[in-house]
């Protein structure tokens, strides 16, 4: 099957391994991702908090292009997803927010996790698993925007989303229930208020350690990089060491599918996950 793909800015930079693992997994599942032609910024980082018109107009442009391609639009980033969905909602009905871009809401906008959790892939994923992630204890981290607000995400369990956990279990990992699934990582304050950001990331790390998880699994390039890059300095500030690898869920899918490229993905992480995976016999 073929779908449109809106990679967003991170996949070019901090989240290259996310993009590559998405490619690998989708190819394995027979999904063709067609990158949205001439895509532009989704408006997440600054537009939506500074200019209401831009916050709708920027994603609207992308949506309109996607609609012309007549296939569903998939995005890997929770922030992109939130902006695109919010805009799609906003452009439906009478209130067009002053935006004149033609968009009829004829396509679905899906986050890549939501997309891969569709029933039609369940069996295929099961078939693809060559190396179950036995012994890997993971906490699933959805962050703010993947599940909320429910009227945008249409998530049934917005306080306690379950999809990523279920996927981890299916891959053979031990998915640990923890209370911080949707806790804020402070990603949006990275540039403005490091103190709060450190506190929030620190809480998440502490809880993952207390839950005796080996790693945190994410589905958002902002969450991943925000936690991964801060572990060392937060640890140093507190006089301790955090060494929890932060995975993109597609990396773990790739690992379970027996992808040969995992090493290239993992070596780009700040907290190197390879020692952990080797100790579990998964690499």
């Amino acid at each position, binding site marked *: 099957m073929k779908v449109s793909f809106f990679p967003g800015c991170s996949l070019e930079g901090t989240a290259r391994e996310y993009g590559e693992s998405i490619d690998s997994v989708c190819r394995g599942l027979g999904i063709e991702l067609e990158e949205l032609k001439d895509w532009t910024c989704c408006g997440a980082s600054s537009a939506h908090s500074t200019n209401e018109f831009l916050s709708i107009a920027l994603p609207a442009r992308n949506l309109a292009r996607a609609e012309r391609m007549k296939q569903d639009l998939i995005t890997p980033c929770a922030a992109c997803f939130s902006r695109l969905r919010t805009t799609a909602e906003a452009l439906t009905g009478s209130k067009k927010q002053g935006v004149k871009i033609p968009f009829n809401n004829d396509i679905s906008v899906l986050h890549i996790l939501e997309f891969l959790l569709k029933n039609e892939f369940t069996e295929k994923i099961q078939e693809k698993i060559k190396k179950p992630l036995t012994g890997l204890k993971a906490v699933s981290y959805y962050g703010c925007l993947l599940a909320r607000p429910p009227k945008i995400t249409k998530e049934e369990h917005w*306080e*306690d989303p379950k999809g990523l956990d279920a996927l981890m279990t299916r891959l053979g990992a031990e998915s640990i*229930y923890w*209370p911080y699934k949707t806790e804020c990582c402070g990603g949006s304050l990275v540039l403005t208020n490091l103190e709060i950001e450190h506190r929030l990331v620190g809480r998440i790390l502490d809880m993952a350690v207390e839950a005796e998880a080996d790693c945190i699994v994410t589905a958002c390039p902002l969450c991943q990089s925000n936690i991964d890059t801060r572990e060392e300095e937060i640890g140093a500030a507190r006089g301790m060491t955090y060494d929890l690898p932060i995975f993109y869920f597609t990396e773990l899918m790739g690992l379970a599918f027996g992808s040969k490229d995992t090493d290239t993905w993992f070596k780009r992480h700040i907290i190197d996950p390879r020692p952990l995976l080797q100790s579990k016999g998964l690499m």
Partner: protein
Amino acid sequence: MNASNEHKDNPVGAVMVVGAGIGGIQASLDLAESGFRVYLVDEESAIGGSMAQLDKTFPTNDCSMCIISPKLVEVGRHLNIDILSYAEIEKLEGSAGNFTVQVKQKPRFVDLDKCTGCGDCAEVCPVEIQNEFDAGLINRKAVYKRYPQAIPNAFAIDKRGTSPCKDACPAGIHVQGYVALIAQSKFKEALALIRKNNPLPAICGRICTHPCETACTRGKIDEPVNIMGLKRFVTDWEYGQEEPEIPSVEEQRDEKIGIVGSGPAGLSAAFYLALEGYQVTVFEALPEPGGMLRWGIPDYRLPGSILDKDIQYIQKLGVEIITDTLIGPGHSIDALFKEGFKAVFLSVGAQKSMRLKIAGEDLQGVVHGVDYLKEINAGKDLPLGDRVAVIGGGNVAIDVVRTALRKGSKEAFIIYRRSRNEMPALDEEIIEAEEEGVKINYLMAPQRIIGIDGRVSGMECIRMELGEPDESGRQRPVPIEGSQITIDVDSVVPAIGQSIDLSFLPEKQDWNISARGNLTVDPVTFATSVPRVFAGGDMISGPATVVEAVGAGREAAISISRFLNGFDLSEGRGTKLPVAEFNPGEITKEPRRNPLKTPFSERIKSFQEVQQALTEEKSIAEAKRCLDCGVCSECLQCVEACLAKAVYHDMLEKQITVNVGSIILAPGFSLTDPNIREEYGYKHYQNVVTSLEFERILSASGPYQGHVKRPSDLTDPERIAWIQCAGSRDISYGKGYCSSVCCMYATKEAIIAKEHAAQVKPTIFYMDIRAHGKGFDTYYERARDEYGVRYIRCQVSKIVERPKSKNLMITYISEENKVVEEEFDLIILSMGMSPSLNSRMLADKLDIALDHYGFCQTDPLQPTATSRPGIYVCGAFEAPKDIPETVSQASGASAAASEIVAEARGTLVRTEKFPPERDIAGEDPKIGVFVCHCGINIGGIVDVPAVKEYARTLPGVSYVDENLYTCSQDTQTKMKEIIQEHGLNRVVVASCSPRTHEPLFQATIREAGLNRYLFEMANIRDQCSWVHMDKKNEATEKAKDLVRMAVASAGFLVPLQEQTLPVNKKALVIGGGASGATSALGLANQGFDVLLLEKEKQLGGNLHLLHYTIDNTDVQTYMHSLIEQVRINPSIQVILDGVIVDTTGFKGNFKTGIMSGPGMAYRQIEHGVTIIATGGEEYKPKEYLYGEDKRVVTQQELEEIIAFKRFDLRNTKTVVMIQCVGSRNDEHPYCSRLCCSAAIKNALKIKALDPEINIYILYRDIRTYGLLEDYYTKARGAGIIFIRYDLERKPEVSIEQGALKISVYDPALGEQVNMHVQLLVLSTAIIPRENDELSTLMKLQRTREGFFLEAHMKLRPVDFATDGIFLCGLAHSPKPLPESLSQAAAAVSRACTLLSHDSITVGGMVAVVDQEKCAACLNCVRVCPYNVPFINENSVAQIDAAQCQGCGSCTAECPGKAIQLMQATDKQILAKAGALFDICKN
């Protein structure tokens, strides 16, 4: 009431009450006591509803169970209440006054008349499921009593339906049952259960096709339970014992029955007929019995020795098997009848091999499958050569190919025309064959067998492909043109099926034979078309499975037995419960345990059995994988255990049709689903529990015996938090209403938790504390100040569990506006009330309207009437409410429901009739002692025969007996005969508790002609065998002590005479406001005369000051209509401008003096009851410049201003309202309940006049309880601003340059707010009207606030402690109009329970004064809680029997020993004590 008049001429004197919680119970008791027959319908197995689950009740901290259980007993024993438990309304026809209701009653599987509630069944029940009464915290058995005090006091069996395994079993084996028994290591019982449906367990434990496993629900999750392996395990276990126990045959019969054929069908029929006692002979043509089991199945699957064991078991039961005897032309069926056989069962099987019908089939080297197996099983050798082709895909083909390998063929393979998917052979058989090296050629069919010299040399086959499905549903194989191949073979074994040979049947008879050549029989009874001949097995079905044949044999045996007894063959057969379907939810996966197999390298060398048995350990573990699909496993252990023979597993659903005049709905509520707020982690966090769970945790009869423990680790929690409004006051979940009770129950739970465990530090997170009921605010303040309960005003948005400690973190904003994170050990979600799904369905069936939340819609002025005439409502189904309001509304509903059928009062009631009492004067005590075994409850611990023999030695005892169950109906009859026969004049029963059983035994002796007080009871169960279970000897000694004491006391029993007094049927109602007028009208409509006394010169009271209700009902119109109705009612006499000046008498017979009119004329009236409705009034404030500045008014005054259109719209910019003026302070420490909604009502009115007017409501807690919360939400939506203030920082009102200035500290802003207003409205307290004199005159108790005090805050909200006097309205406590009206109706209902009787019986167990001894010291007068004793004209104390409640307080206090309490006289108590201590000295 707006009842239809359609049936007014023919009303029915019965009422149906739906829902048997406290509301339904109260309504039922009121109605039954008022002369109506009541049908009390409840969906549970026992009555009691939610209240029975609670631990304590606020604000009195009474034990909930202790106060409800006497009511349960009363309902259970009431002659005119029929309890229909496990039932629901199915259909309703007719109209008000005359309804026909169809009720569906679930089978209980326990006969209510026989069950004694002893619980022996639950002891042996192997199935455990979550105990819903204990909120799922612990388990109960599938056979259960909802709770120990349950009424009906009987067990019930929980069945979800037939378990899929049993349903799938052609023999109908109780599969889930024997699996459950194996899980409990009850192997013998498991096997006995299997044999109830299958006498060949060892065989079926090996070669069954086990459709049960295919159906197993577990298979949908991981793998099916290894049911066959379990069956084999128990048979191997038994056959490994010395000698299996053979079941006993109850009655031997003379009838001879012949069975033709000794295969599984024949053996099965033989077994079940022999079990019935018939003389059974089996005729077998071959030299050994067993049929296909012996000749068709190789030893490596079913060893001959195992077959022999099952057959020997059957023979031991008396079945005779005659071998080498062919029934056919030589020895015909007719001949059997002539030889004296009464019936014949044919089961000759399907023996003839089907032919391939291709060329070469007669060559040497072609041998048919069954023939081959028969030869080998007979011990002969039949070499097939090196290459063997077996044709076919069934089990026979597999058996042949594997046998051939064992017999030395080098290459044996299968040729099958379809694919693996269609192959009928069992999967495991195919796998084993493949393990042994068998090759299967799929999609291939033989076309011709090639021979050389008359001997097989090869075979031509053709490849096939699958085409369209055929009639069997499988795809039809179609040959592929030109794909022929030839293979070399030494022999060919066709195994494509068997056919039936009916040539043995006598031709002259009229056999019904199908087109396919099978004998046709009735599918249920297995009767053939020839009389007295039955048939079953393969000869009927064509080649099928062993278990089908077994089932057929058993069914035929039942038919034959019925036939010989002259019963209908098919009646009641072929019906069973629907299959239990359920979603087991999240369960732990666990792999199936499979038996070990002999390694294939070894097994192909011999006929040694391939599969080995499961070990005992593995079997038990495997059995525990069962999911109990049917809940009850039908293991039938309860049937064995029940000595009263009360269990019937074949009970069916019942349809009951009853005729009633009206219906009361009291279905209660269901707890709001705690999962709607996922952020509280209810399912995932073990230490987050619901308030109901915590009630059970606190309860002494709960899962932790009342110890405060938390679920995760059963440790004692210290830091406990309550989160209020969890699922209430939350529009995002569709629960916009306030649940009304949670603030108070959380407070109570905090207090009780603290009382149970001093270390507890309770914290309650709340939005507003809603302590709006009588005595609630004081209770809340006590919790805060005396118990140290911390109240934090904050809505908690999330709970976080610490993964290791399972402690919980709450983040909240403190009063100081600081973010605080605090850790707790246990969190309780104060869940609200929701209308239950069942009540919505009920409303649908009855076609009554619901509100937008699903509560029953009512009119504020008719608070118990539903939208359908003749159907009334009470309790939490109407709106969330607590117990007293429910009880009072229940009485109100019962008044409404009985009013429309008042004419039919007494037409359908049952009355007791007793023989005359025997005069025992002058007789020496002749005491009969009956000692009860209570099944094994007492008998299993206490040596009952020894106690009985001991009782024989006691003085005065002239008869002793022991009973299995003294309370059973047959024993009661026997007891009556014994009392009469032996002339007994005192009776002692040593059994369970007088609480439940004393009235029953008293009735029994009364029926035997004895005075009911000549009875004494010794509690040797609850107080002996139950508490000393592990000390049998000591328990026996204690039982003797208890019996000795009871006998000693019984010697002093005297008959007590009860006195009958007439009832004056007139009522006096004091107070002519809304409540009093409504009461008067209600009583008049019930057919009683009323005198309505009003102090003022006009009726109406506070109604004159009310203009509109919060929902905009016009009060003035209502008032005028009410007064007019009263005025024209001929039964009501109104006295205005009158007061009471004296009163005497007691219930049924009061005399009251009244002075009235301008001249204060005196008159005395006689009446049977009194209703106090003296009302209340608005407090006139002294504070906030009231009376000093005319811009300061009360809410009542504001209402008048608005109503008379005097509101100054032009100049009013800002209005401020101050709540709690004169309420909740030192002077009036209570909440006036209606001021919050009055303020909102008036504020919304002003906003409607002009939305631009700013309105500020300064409040302490907004108490818009229940559905009133909607108006609070609406008010905030309308822009009305609410500012909270504390008692410490009250608003300040001043005049600043002529302007009215209000200054208040706003905690939300953290700043002082100043406002200039044009109108200040004070929401003032409600205080009782002057009632000092009345309370003194009538000796009525009041609260310290001056409101009248009811007999019991929870359960007797409109009764006074003095019988015959009732109260309602504001005289009771502040409340809004609808609640007053409902209470007024309640008072009517309560009054009717007295007025509807012509006479009352008084006396019995009452205090009696010996006038000679009385010194008139006044001790009794002071101590009596009911104000009964008084000093009479002879200057001695007098206690009227009609008023005495028998509590004994005066008896204990009287220094002169002048007062004796009958039935507990000093003599009796001393005798008891003496009997105990005299012996102790020895």
